[in-house]
């Protein structure tokens, strides 16, 4: 909305009368709309499928496999989830808390870092770029990471164990740096400096607002990253009260894999199997773990789909 109002006053009238020249011609537009619509459908389709499976009866799933139209409908999966709502709500809360807190922290750290290494005035920018970049290539060993988190910082079984490991990301830093380089003309900053603004003030008042699409992108990635992360919970969390939603799901998958690989356990396997949610319930969990985060997307989207954010602040 806002972005639409921003274009320079001159073009405003013209845009009312004729079609927006930044878009396709009507004919291409129709073709593209259909084409993109199809691909979008292909992307959503499996998710719809997941929903369908979650409302199929377990018996029919085992007997007939996954069907687009189930042999037998059932809401058992959701009543199963309702029975474990305590854990689900708890996990949902943890996921939410970690995602929000984590995104704020990581966006802040990443933006500052990327901004500094994007400035030509920064004498050591080359070093710090490589310093960040190098971490992308070399995996930190899992065991040493565990020791740092567990024995140095003692963060095991705290939400910081879920937040900290994802707080920085060299990949995002480099993307962000590109955004800063491309979207902030040095001339603007120069004039601000002449006005006597400090670098921090320039950073927060001028550079950050100019780089909003980039920041929104990083924030989105970060949000998705935190929400989807199960690995660090697997490493650092034993307390059931701190297990995020995706880790809950992943544990079920891991347990199934365990059963598959340990059939020789005999009786015990059937015992474990009884405790693992069955397919329909699993899919129902996928639904509740996916929908909320997918629906946050439009919130970020408004910062970069309609464009023209930069036109508004041109001198």
């Amino acid at each position, binding site marked *: 909305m806002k972005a639409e109002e921003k274009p320079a006053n001159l*073009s405003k009238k013209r845009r009312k009368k004729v*079609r*927006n020249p*930044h*878009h396709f011609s009507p004919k291409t*537009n129709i073709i593209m709309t259909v084409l*993109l*619509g199809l*691909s*979008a459908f292909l*992307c959503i389709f*499996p*998710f719809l499928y997941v929903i369908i499976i979650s409302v199929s009866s377990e018996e029919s799933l085992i007997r007939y*496999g996954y069907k687009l139209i189930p042999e037998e409908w059932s809401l058992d999966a959701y009543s199963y989830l309702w029975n474990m709502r305590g854990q689900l709500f708890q996990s949902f809360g943890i996921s939410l808390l970690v995602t929000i807190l984590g995104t704020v922290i990581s966006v802040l750290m990443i933006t*500052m*870092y990327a901004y*500094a290494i994007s*400035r030509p*005035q*920064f004498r*050591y920018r*080359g070093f*710090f*770029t*490589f*310093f960040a*970049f190098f*971490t992308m*290539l*070399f*995996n*930190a*060993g899992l065991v*040493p*990471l565990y020791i740092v988190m567990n024995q140095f910082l003692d963060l095991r079984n705290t939400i910081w164990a879920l937040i*900290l*490991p994802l707080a920085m990301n060299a*990949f995002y830093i480099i*993307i962000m740096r590109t955004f800063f380089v*491309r979207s902030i003309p040095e001339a603007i900053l120069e004039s601000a400096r002449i006005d006597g603004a400090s*670098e921090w003030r320039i950073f927060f008042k001028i550079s950050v607002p100019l780089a909003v*699409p*980039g920041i929104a992108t990083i924030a989105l990635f970060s949000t*998705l990253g935190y929400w*989807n992360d199960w690995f660090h919970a697997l490493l650092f969390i034993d307390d059931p009260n701190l297990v995020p939603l995706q880790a809950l799901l*992943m544990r079920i998958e891991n347990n199934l894999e365990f059963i598959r690989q340990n059939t020789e356990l005999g009786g015990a396997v059937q015992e474990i199997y009884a405790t693992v949610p069955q397919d329909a319930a699993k*899919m129902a969990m*996928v639904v509740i*773990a996916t929908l909320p985060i*997918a629906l946050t*997307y439009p919130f970020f*989207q408004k910062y*970069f*789909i309609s*464009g*023209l*954010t*930069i*036109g508004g602040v*041109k001198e």
Partner: protein
Amino acid sequence: MKKFFRNLWENRTWLLMVLPGTLWFILLAYIPMAGNVIAFKEYTIHPEGFIASIIHSDWVGFDNFKFLFSTSDAWVITRNTILYNLVFILLGLALAVALAILLSQLANKRLAKVYQTGMLFPHFLSWVVVSYFVFSFLSMDKGLFNNILESLGMSGISWYHEPEYWPYILTSMNVWKTVGFSSIIYLAAIAGINRDYYEAAMIDGASKWQQIKHVTLPALMPLMVILTILDIGKIFRADFGLFYQVPRDSGTLYSVTNVIDTYVYRGLMQMGDISMTTAAGLYQSMVGLILVLLTNYIVKRIDKDYALF
């Protein structure tokens, strides 16, 4: 020396900005990185803890790397990893950029948003879940595809035993899962392009295609180059879930599904040898590092502005 401190002082604002990140990198990336030394040792456990364990473990040189090279599988996994990744990088780049441009051009903004949200969905489904879904299509006797083939009077295909289809299946699954997500970066970059450029182009009578070619693509170029360089650094790492879960670990498909990561997993699952796991990771990193430096060097020669550092 004095000059060094003066320089530090002059750069204090910037140094302060990178400080939190730097601390993080030291603590959670560089210190743990030192653990890679066990790739050259046969790790045994010492009661005094990790450091003592490392010190007391025997040096074995490159022994831990050997398993990656000692059989004809070495060729298969290296070939598969590199070829798949190359295809993924090129196809992914082209489709993500195309998608971003198309979406940004759609007249109906609301629809564009809906589409885009939809295209993000695959990103949320784990490969395990995707593998169930693929199985429901490809299962031999219950699968949708075989049902269709049979109803057309053809005989069913045992998908999980026929390697020839899998390069296409894996490539399309990868594209399906990643393109919606990676187009976001380009969408954001397009949003940052100053519209004056387009208006100038239009005044010059440029067609839509020409505008894309002369305004949008050049503006996206730096990002495209950088992301590609970064991807090349990961060319020796394969997406484990895609190559393990989606083909359901079916042995008869290994000639086209076995990649470095799955090979390492299957080889070390039983022994749980962390020295060898680390060695494999280090090998992947080293190749990645060399390739990145090389690509970056070439890019630098062509256009200094596009290089990573």
